[in-house]
């Protein structure tokens, strides 16, 4: 199968989208951005390809009718097991890197206690893993760093309290090792991982093992031929592609939003460290844009700091803020001060959810200024980027748009975070169409 790939290398997350020759989305992949951009791009792309293969597999399974009514259940188990396998693989490598670190001899007397603490933690994380990845348990981060990090820190806290080595030192092991873990590719590859997952699921004795495995092999064998790839995003200058395969993220977001919602006139994208307000014409071509300046106040990272301060996941922030009845007025300040501001307000007696509601509104106010700068909000508006996943942010946006621009349709797609990558992939497709005749002549 011929495919076209778009990669959006954001400051926080890296996204990949795979299209077929008709422009239909076959798969998506996302990972957190990390110091090695090649790896980030590679991982996102692998994830997207995996996603494609899974789509193929699912179709094949459905067509075969092999599992009948049990398909959904099997599917749930298989995908969960696949994720679990991935997680365990990472965990192994985390363990190895932590041990390497211990072996370097920086830790003096603490080496032994740290080593046993580590063993303890890794065992714990392993034991907890199947539960974390059981089907139906959603609402956790997509990223190994976050999931393992949370478990690691919690365990370290308990061990330190129970007389183990100091908390900082244990957590230091994780901090040091997570970087190499993220910066090397998964090693194992798709097929063995799927196969291991399959074994996990079928060990219970579901269905016709041999027949299933055959189908699986077929789906895995499907050839995916990348015809063209376009990269975009904050880190695009560092992407390992030639210049003509790189597009500005402004154009990609504009086009992506247009493809998802063809009536889009205004696009707002709030990512981790930048906010963009974009106007597009009826064909999805950008006519105007504005970005935040050299200050990251009011971007997604702001919420990250708050989540850190509260020790909760990013996805939990929005719902909490939604419970507010009396929003506190906050003038959005420096992103780094977000935590302190939050603490201050708490000390002043404001309720958590009210403060959170105020913070969300503050972020959206900054975005409104950019929007106004770019030419205002026109009908329809599409909200993209990671922050669009946050219900309190979208609620604040709707409210502000209504107050200032009246009735405007606001589109928010569940996979809005992929907007830039969709735009990039579409550019890849269009470029290859446009390029072909030239190649033939040449």
């Amino acid at each position, binding site marked *: 199968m011929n495919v076209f790939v778009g990669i959006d290398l954001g400051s926080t997350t890296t996204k990949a989208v795979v299209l077929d020759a008709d422009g239909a989305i076959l798969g998506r992949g996302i990972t957190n951005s990390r*110091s090695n951009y090649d790896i980030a791009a590679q991982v996102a792309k692998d994830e997207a390809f995996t996603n494609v293969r899974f789509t193929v597999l699912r179709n094949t399974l459905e067509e075969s009718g092999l599992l009948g009514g049990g398909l959904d259940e099997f599917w749930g188990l298989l995908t969960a097991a696949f994720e679990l396998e991935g997680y365990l693989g990472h965990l192994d490598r985390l363990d190895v890197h932590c041990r390497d670190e211990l072996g370097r001899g920086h830790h003096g007397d603490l080496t032994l206690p740290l080593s046993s603490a580590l063993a303890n933690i890794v065992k714990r994380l392993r034991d907890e893993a199947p539960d974390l990845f059981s089907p139906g348990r959603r609402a956790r981060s997509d990223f190994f760093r976050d999931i393992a990090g949370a478990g690691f820190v919690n365990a370290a806290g308990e061990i330190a309290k129970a007389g183990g080595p100091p908390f900082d030192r244990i957590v230091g092991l994780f901090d040091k090792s997570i970087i190499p873990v993220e910066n090397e590719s998964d090693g194992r590859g798709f097929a063995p991982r799927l196969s291991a997952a399959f074994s996990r699921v079928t060990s219970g004795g579901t269905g016709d093992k041999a027949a299933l495995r055959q189908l699986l092999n077929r789906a895995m064998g499907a050839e995916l031929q990348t015809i063209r790839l376009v990269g975009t995003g904050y880190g695009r200058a560092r992407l390992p592609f030639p210049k003509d395969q790189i597009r500005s993220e402004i154009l990609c977001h504009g086009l992506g939003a247009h493809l998802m919602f063809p009536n889009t006139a205004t696009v707002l994208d709030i990512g981790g460290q930048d906010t963009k307000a974009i106007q597009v014409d009826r064909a999805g071509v950008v006519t105007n844009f504005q970005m935040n300046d050299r200050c990251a106040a009011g971007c997604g990272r702001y919420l990250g700091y708050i989540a850190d301060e509260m020790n909760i996941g990013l996805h939990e922030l929005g719902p909490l803020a939604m419970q507010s009845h009396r929003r506190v007025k906050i003038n959005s300040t420096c992103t780094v001060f977000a935590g302190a501001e939050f603490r201050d307000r708490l000390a002043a007696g404001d309720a958590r959810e009210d403060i959170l509601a105020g913070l969300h509104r503050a972020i959206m106010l900054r975005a409104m200024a950019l929007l106004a700068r770019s030419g205002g909000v026109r009908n329809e508006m599409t909200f993209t980027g990671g922050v669009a996943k946050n219900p309190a942010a979208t609620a604040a946006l709707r409210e502000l748009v209504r107050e200032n621009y009246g009735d405007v349709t606001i589109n928010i797609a569940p996979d809005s975070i992929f907007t830039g990558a969709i735009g990039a992939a579409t550019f890849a497709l269009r470029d290859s169409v446009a390029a072909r005749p030239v190649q033939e002549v040449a």
Partner: protein
Amino acid sequence: MTLTAGIDVGAGAVKVAIVETGYCGERLRGVCFERIRRRTVESVVDQAFETVLNEVGVRRDQLDYIATTGEGDTIPWRTGHFYGMTTHARGALFLEPKARGAVDVGALHARAMRFDERGRVLEYRMTSQCASGSGQFVENIARYLGVALDEVGTLSRKAEKPEKVSGICAVLAETDVINMVSRGISTPNILRGIHDSIAMRLASLARGIKVSGTVLVTGGLSLDAGLVAALADRLRDGAAVVDVRTHELSVHAGAIGAALFGAFRHEKLAAKQPSQNSTTFSEPANAGGG
């Protein structure tokens, strides 16, 4: 003899100091440092306060004056409050009698002050809206690089070719750092680059008030030898010779200064109303001391 406590409530940590002043001068009896780490400030203050009282063997009611500083003016049981730069200057002078200037770098803010031989603040500056010269900044970068906070300084000092950090924003700099890692810049060179950029901001604060002579770095980042070195470099390339120092108890400067001013104030008040406060001055108050 007067026994006083200073409590410095910061954005990142609570610091407590117990000081005894008398005929033999000022003596630091004990200190305590407790990071807040997502706990309520009150509980951290209580815990830190109890810890240090136990350590030096003093009861609360034996204290003549409990002085707060930093965000401590919300503590209901304080005797009085002094503002941050007042106390850091006094604490710096106590730790380094030659010092006539101090640069305090805390979790969110940085301050620079110049003072006289009695610790009287003559001029000061502090950062406001932007966190690009702060401890939190270093913490974030350290987290990105996978370096424990207490290694940051040592590593930074090993830098051979510090990488220039262009941006000013502490948040965007995180991405800069990712870029550097991907370009294969070594951890020491990155850290030193960060230190240099913070030091530049600090130096401009310090220069703004014309510090000279000996300057003590106080606050949490005084523990970061890399930053201290970078700051020393930065202040050296100006015309005036500045001797930048730090002290192992620098992080407690605010609390120490508060306790000392507490004593100062206590004596002043006592001089005004000797009868009311006379009990505080009686010998038995010393019983717990060593």
